[in-house]
């Protein structure tokens, strides 16, 4: 190893709205997308490559992502394939706490984790949404996620008619 080179060099990333963030190489390599970029230029060129632009992630979301990757930089991360077999039996309490955020932030975090290819973060955040859907009626789901009821009036009428028939029984 080069004695003058820090063991975990600093890397800079720039959000879509132009804010620059600094983190470590070890943390940023949790992103499959950035890892591919760095492998392309060679790790030796990390110090000289300048800030990495991330066009699809805004500064608020990037700040959250960096907080997560810095916390998990020393953990072995599962691959996308390993994630498929993962059960939701145990979630790290730190992650549970980390995901306590409003839905808008959570949606942005999901799309960022998807774009940056961070399988574990994507799994945690999508699972969080699934847990919110659990045990809710269609109406409750609509109001929680602000989903428009896109049934046509004729369809709704047909359903009401059917339900009326059920109630009469």
């Amino acid at each position, binding site marked *: 190893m080069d004695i003058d080179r820090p063991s975990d060099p600093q890397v800079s990333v720039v959000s879509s709205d132009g804010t620059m963030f600094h983190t470590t190489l070890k943390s940023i390599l949790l992103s499959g997308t950035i890892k591919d970029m760095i492998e392309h230029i060679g790790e030796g060129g990390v110090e000289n490559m300048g800030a990495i632009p991330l066009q699809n992630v805004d500064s608020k979301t990037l700040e959250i992502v960096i907080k997560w990757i810095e916390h998990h930089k020393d953990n072995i991360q599962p691959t996308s394939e390993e994630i498929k077999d993962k059960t939701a039996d145990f979630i790290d309490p730190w992650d549970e706490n980390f995901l306590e955020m409003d839905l808008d932030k959570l949606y942005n975090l999901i799309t960022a984790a998807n774009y940056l290819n961070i399988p574990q973060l994507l799994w945690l955040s*999508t699972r969080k949404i699934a847990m919110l859907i659990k045990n809710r009626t*269609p109406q409750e789901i609509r109001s929680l996620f602000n989903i428009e009821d*896109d049934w046509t009036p004729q369809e709704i009428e047909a359903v009401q008619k059917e339900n009326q028939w059920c109630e009469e029984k």
Partner: protein
Amino acid sequence: MEFIELPEEILIEIFGYLKNEDLWNILRASRRCAEIFSTSSRLVNIFQLFIDDKTINLYQRIEIYPEIRLKNIVIKYLNLFDSNQLQNITKIIENYKSSILNLSICDTAFNSSEDFNKILKNLTNLENLKIHRIYIKNFDSNIKILLKSLRSISIELRFPAETRNLLDIFKNNKTIQQVELNNSLILSYFDDFLISLPNLKHLILNGIGTVDYFNRSNLPIKLEKLEAFSLGFYSRNERPRIEILKSQKGFLKELKLENLPSDNDGGKVLKFLMENMNLENFQCGANQLIVNSKKQKIEEIEFKNDQICAGLEMMRHFESIKKLKFIIEQAETNVDLFLNIPTNIFDNLRDLEIVDKTYNGLKFWSYIEFIRNCRNIKNLKIYAKNINGNNKRLTEILPSVNCIKKFQFIDDCLIQSC
């Protein structure tokens, strides 16, 4: 950003975590969700529409969603004597008649064969049908159901007459390749049914009720794959079970047995299976003994009662076995079979556990003799309900048994080496 604006692959990912009922609720929440669901073959494959007496009224809306591709429907606990319920179910099935591949009808009553036929007759793409514990009040033997794509059928009925009636409905089907029979007493009509299926390759017999099927010298059909609870018991009609196996030799490629062959000829049966049948895949209990025609390395086995002979044959065949657990639940089990065998088959054994749930004190001394034959064991556990009272004698004897120099009594039932 809104939930519905999340990329399609993300929504599919989220839906994939949901169980049936929750998935059904999100599909009903919006047309967009239902459309996304239908684009994912993974979700369509795993989703089961479960219709029972409690949920049948929830599915009214399904009618106006014909774009949902439904592959799997489970119908359970319905009384279809009620014409309204029958009409409702028939309408649901009719809506999805071309997409349904797997249908289960369990614990459901029909007034007539005609009503039963109403549900099935239009399922042109149905591949797998499960009919468990159904009741047809007025059976009409003239009604035959021809399902052009049916590949497998699974049946469980309580009474032989009902089973025969139901099998008659599906007789002579040219597409059925797999038949599963659960917990049913098998009589001659089952042979008639199997013989009538020209493309049958795979037979599954589940539950101890099906064991008698093997008490014969020949099977009426040639199978490529057989799954069975057990290959039956030793026949006192002087027709060893090997005769049945001989009749399948050259045809049977895969065999899965839930239990080791029992009785005094169990060892011979297992030996024949291992050495003469040229099986490509052979699974016995939890152990894969042969995979892709290669004998596997087995490290531990468990057998019980009258499986001793087959268990000992396992020890002969698989030198890799290091751990053995033997369970005795039946007082008449002849444990002396352990004694008159070449001792070297136990040389690789390191862990031995004997669990005796009977109160037959005499067996205990046979275990001690057996343990003497296991020259290299490191860990021993004997659980027997009759240890209490023998402690003093055991304390004298056990230290002379090979490696068992140190041991302890735990409670009144357990001896453990340490």
